[in-house]
């Protein structure tokens, strides 16, 4: 589903190489986790895949369902099926959460040549999905993420993901800033979306999220490369021994 080959990325503004040859394949139906110490390039990978400004791809490729996504605008990548749950969801004063969701859902449907969703159908679906994530009507009415707690912001990300129903979901440090209850809610929301035709890339610093979202494959990233790949047991190894051993071993 997602194929990353020898991806090299540097910062646009300065001569700093962040990704130094990332190879990764995420299959449909699977959950891949990327773990790694701070500064290893995990978040950069998510930004580069979603099309954020400020990065320059110097070598390598990234394909989603056979399409080269690196040349696409962010909205085209979204229409192609990619979704990034932000580590720091952005506040947008003046734009209602509901308007935002509906605009996004309909923009994607339009880009895929589908009809726009009727407002009744949309409302019904949003309400049902919001309820599962314990997002109340008031939160839906408020401007996007404005005044939301950390947990509310993350739940709002998962609500967007559920409404948009992407092919590939990237979760960037979704567990950061969450208490246990909120993490469980978020994880339940993600698990509901697991399906044979959807892939997940879960980026996290800690193992604890992976207790709730069980990965099929775990990668360890260090200094811009994936240095080790294994099963769920690899995450436990990190939990026990830290990154130091694995990083040295991989280098």
């Amino acid at each position, binding site marked *: 589903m997602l194929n990353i080959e020898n991806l090299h990325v540097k910062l646009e503004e300065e001569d700093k190489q962040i990704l130094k040859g990332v190879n990764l394949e995420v299959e449909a139906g699977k959950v891949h986790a990327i773990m790694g110490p701070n500064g290893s390039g995990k978040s950069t990978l998510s930004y580069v895949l979603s099309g954020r400004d400020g990065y320059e791809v110097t070598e390598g490729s990234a394909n989603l369902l056979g399409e080269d996504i690196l040349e696409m605008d962010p909205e085209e990548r979204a*229409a192609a099926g990619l979704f990034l749950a932000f580590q720091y969801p952005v506040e*947008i004063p003046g*734009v209602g959460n509901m308007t935002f969701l509906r*605009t*996004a859902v309909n*923009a994607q449907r339009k880009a895929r040549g589908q009809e726009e969703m009727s407002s009744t159908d949309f409302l019904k679906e949003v309400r049902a999905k919001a309820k599962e994530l314990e997002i109340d009507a008031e939160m839906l009415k408020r401007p996007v993420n404005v005044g939301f707690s950390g947990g509310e912001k993350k739940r709002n990300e998962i609500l967007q993901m559920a409404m948009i129903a992407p092919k590939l979901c990237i979760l960037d440090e979704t567990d950061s800033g969450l208490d246990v209850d909120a993490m469980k809610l978020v994880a339940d929301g993600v698990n509901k979306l697991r399906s044979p035709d959807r892939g997940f890339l879960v980026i996290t610093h800690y193992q604890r999220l992976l207790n709730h979202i069980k990965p099929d494959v775990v990668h360890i990233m260090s200094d811009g490369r994936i240095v080790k790949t294994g099963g769920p047991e690899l995450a436990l190894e990190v939990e026990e021994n830290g990154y130091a051993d694995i990083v040295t071993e991989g280098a």
Partner: protein
Amino acid sequence: MAQPQVKFDATEERLAALSLPEGGWSEAARRDALARVRAIGLPHARDEYWKYTKPATLVAPEAPHAALFDSGEAPLFDAVDRLKVVFVDGVFDAEASDDLSLAGIEIERLGTSGADIHWAKDLYGRLELAGQDPVARPLAALNTAFATDGVLIRATGKAAKPVNLVYRHKSETSDAILHHCIKVEEGAELTVLENGPAAARFNKAMEVEVADNATFHHIRAQGRDHERRAATHLFARLGQESVFKSFTLTANGKLTRNEVVIELTGDDAVAHVAGACMGDGDFHHDDTVFVTHDAVNCESRQVFKKVLRNGARGVFQGKILVKPGAQQTDGYQISQSLLLDEDSEFDAKPELEIYADDVACSHGSTSGAIDEEALFYLRSRGVPVGHAEDLLTLAFLAEAVLEIEDHDLQDEINGRIEAWLLRRRAA
């Protein structure tokens, strides 16, 4: 104070092109106003109050030529149940207007003949005169002296529906001077809507007396003609526990100066004035506001938002004056511009002058580009870049538009803004 010769000459040249309407109850006020114009002199580029807006074309004896513009859109407020009063190039058009009768109000055309006694005699030119101090507004005095048409509205109860002043522009050289007097009596309620480009050059004054416990709402859209020029004045005096809310939408227009002068004279009164403007290219828009608190526990809000691109220029001069004894004043003022490119310019001059000690006044002014983070967030959710920019632009203007209390009218205005943005995106 002696005027510079150039200013004196320009004033006399302008006055020579006008003739003072004679007779009727307004004659004395007109003569007084003419004397004021002569004493002050018309605005000149070197006047401090005109530092950011060149007054030459507003003062010239002849109106600059303005090409007519057909937007192809249905007129604004067409869907609203209202009493329509139509002016074509500044002349009342009885045929196009509704019957001038409405439950809750008395409404008539401003005439120059008639008896020497009229309720408007106590209002015509009075608020304009009061508004000349401490800052002179000579174009308003010129208006009082030479206005050729307008309406006089007296609300005695709750007006059955809004009064809509519609300004059509059909001559490329029209030079219109309109003066309206509105008196909202104790406990009465009135909404006035204004829309249309009016004329090649438009000088309009509106004096509004809002009595104790009365409510006045004002929503205007200044028409999309690219070449029109306008200098407008809105004077309001508020009684105890009265409410005054005014919103203006300006899209396009070579030159617009909207002055608003509000005096809160009764305790517990509320005055809100807001504006949203969008300019693209040869566009100059100036909001000049002066709010005077002269009573206890009054609230005033000024919310002005400007979206500018392709060299468009926005100006805001806003002042809150809190007089001695106007305790518990709650004053707020915000002026912001969204600059969509590097060629556009916004000049802001916020001022507070406070002579009471138990007062909460805040003011702020910002200029900025579209928030890149928010833009990326929207795009990452599949919203195309142009649409995402429009959403963020609407969000930027929202604080001003939300000052319109009526939701249907709010929707009408938002519809116009969205259409404007959509056209810019298509262009």
